């Protein structure tokens, strides 16, 4: 199956865990197996059919000259689409913008999310209310929130724009636009980060903190030397997922600036190549490059920081 190609890590994991101890199987175990395969089959088939096959198809498209305006001029051109993308200033500026947005917003989200998690963890009065309210940014449609920010920063219309000196229009300037995009991104996703961190926080034993306090550890020492190290697995999972998520940012930018004034992310670039320039070959090359970038980020997280893949967890039980 094409699984080996797409999921080498999972494949070796399976070999390590599934195949080594293989005692003769009983009748019951065999029927249990058959049932399990039947139950999993629909999920596996649909997940592979809609991701593995299209990404393979994208690789194939990316090797062709394929402009929807000139469909007859289609032909195999090897890696030259990649050369075009990688030597173009558009790709690298979009890549830089994406990285800046990703790094800054994940860093802010982590600090704010941790503060929010501590508030939710410790507060007694109004606990239910706080936890309910925090879910609103998480649940709200990104496009809706983006419009709220856009109107807020539109001169004349917006309550925030009116606080600025007269004549400034933040959404027409590159740096200010990126700041607004980061603000929108942070507002929307900090609660999710906070909830993941809150779950990690719940695993830190209160007794330990009390003991440290008795021994004279300051609040800051307790945070950096007890709470954070004990939360490390939760922190890494939260950071990994948010980094990957921020890297594919699209909705907020599309609404706020539509990529103008040098604010387009790689996703915006891919979208524009496809639906504004109708160049399926170049668009596919960009898609494949984004896929590779995301895979690299995930790989680095897991290798460098030892972020436990959350999927490994059910296997242990």
């Amino acid at each position, binding site marked *: 199956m094409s699984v080996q190609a797409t999921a080498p890590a999972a494949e070796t994991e399976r070999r390590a865990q599934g195949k080594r101890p293989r005692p003769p199987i009983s009748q019951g175990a065999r029927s249990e197996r058959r049932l399990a395969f039947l139950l999993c089959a629909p999920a596996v088939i649909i997940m592979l059919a809609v991701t593995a096959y299209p990404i393979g198809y994208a690789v194939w498209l990316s090797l062709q000259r394929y402009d929807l305006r000139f469909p007859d001029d289609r032909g195999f051109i090897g890696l030259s689409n990649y050369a075009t993308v990688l030597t173009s200033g558009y790709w690298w500026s979009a890549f830089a913008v994406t990285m800046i947005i990703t790094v800054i917003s994940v860093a802010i989200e982590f600090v704010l999310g941790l503060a929010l998690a501590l508030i939710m963890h410790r507060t007694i009065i109004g606990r239910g209310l706080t936890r309910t309210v925090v879910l609103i940014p998480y*649940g709200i449609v990104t*496009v809706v929130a983006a419009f709220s920010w856009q109107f807020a920063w539109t001169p004349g219309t917006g309550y925030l724009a009116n606080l600025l000196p007269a004549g400034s229009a933040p959404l027409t300037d590159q740096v200010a636009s990126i700041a607004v995009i980061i603000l929108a991104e942070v507002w929307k996703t900090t609660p999710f980060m906070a909830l993941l961190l809150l*779950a990690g926080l719940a695993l830190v034993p209160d007794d330990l903190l009390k003991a440290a306090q008795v021994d004279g550890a300051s609040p800051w020492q307790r945070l950096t030397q007890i709470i954070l190290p004990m939360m490390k697995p939760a922190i890494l999972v939260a950071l990994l997922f948010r980094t990957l998520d921020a890297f594919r940012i699209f909705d907020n930018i599309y609404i706020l600036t539509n990529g103008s004034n040098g604010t387009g992310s790689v996703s915006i670039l*891919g979208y524009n190549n496809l639906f504004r320039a109708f160049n399926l070959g170049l668009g596919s090359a960009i898609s494949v490059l984004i*896929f590779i970038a995301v895979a690299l980020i995930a790989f680095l997280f897991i290798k460098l920081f030892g972020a436990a893949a959350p999927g490994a967890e*059910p*296997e242990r039980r």
Partner: protein
Amino acid sequence: MAVQTQTGGAGRSKWAIANTIVLLYALIPVLWIVSLSFKPASSITDGNFIPREWTFDNYAQVFGVDLFTSALINSIGIAVIATVLAVVIGTMAAYAVARLRFPGKGLLVGISLLIAMFPPISLVSPLFDLWRGIGLFDTWPGLIIPYITFSLPLAIYTLSAFFREIPWELEKAAKMDGATPLQAFRSVIVPLAAPGVFTTAILVFIFCWNDFLFAISLTSTQASQTATVAIANFTGASEFAEPTGSIAAAAVLLTIPIIIFVLFFQRRIVAGLTSGAVKG
């Protein structure tokens, strides 16, 4: 950001302040768009946070346009169908992951993890071409299929975390007491599993409801355009009217189901969001 442990008046007022900040943080952008949606065209550009005069004109206008009503129906229909299918398929797989022993479990979990990390934009160009080829472009199934795919990892994680907490011995006990397998399943297992399935359904629905990238790439007409796309494409009633008010009203309408879910099922959503990610 220190961990506060002190009690008493000073500590309590500190918490009150912290909670108020959180409240304002979460609510201000939402209240702002609500406020805009009630402003009449004459004062929509006054920049006031609270409208000076109130009107329902914007809502009337939004429902006066065919485009938005059909988009709302598309959004609801597509999200509901995708949710039901994803939850059914996810429940089957999650049951196997949580309860059965079989080789390849790690592989299944690995595939779902990869898909959870997959960048949707990478699929947009191939799916656009494939869907045009097989006639799924600009149809409901054309959106439902990718939605199911991308919500399955979430569904499988959340559900298998819930299923591992269920005391399955009760089923055996019920059978010992003389219940048929079907009875044991219906009156013991279903009530225990229902909260987890329901929570998963809410999370998947929110995911589908929120999507913009697939919706804007794989649809082109009223036949399947969803509400998020309709809002983004809004133009004013006439060429000279700014669509701000209509966009705000439509945005508020899109937010209502989310607010209802959050208000009524807060505890469950939190449990569901955190169960799959950190520890079952």
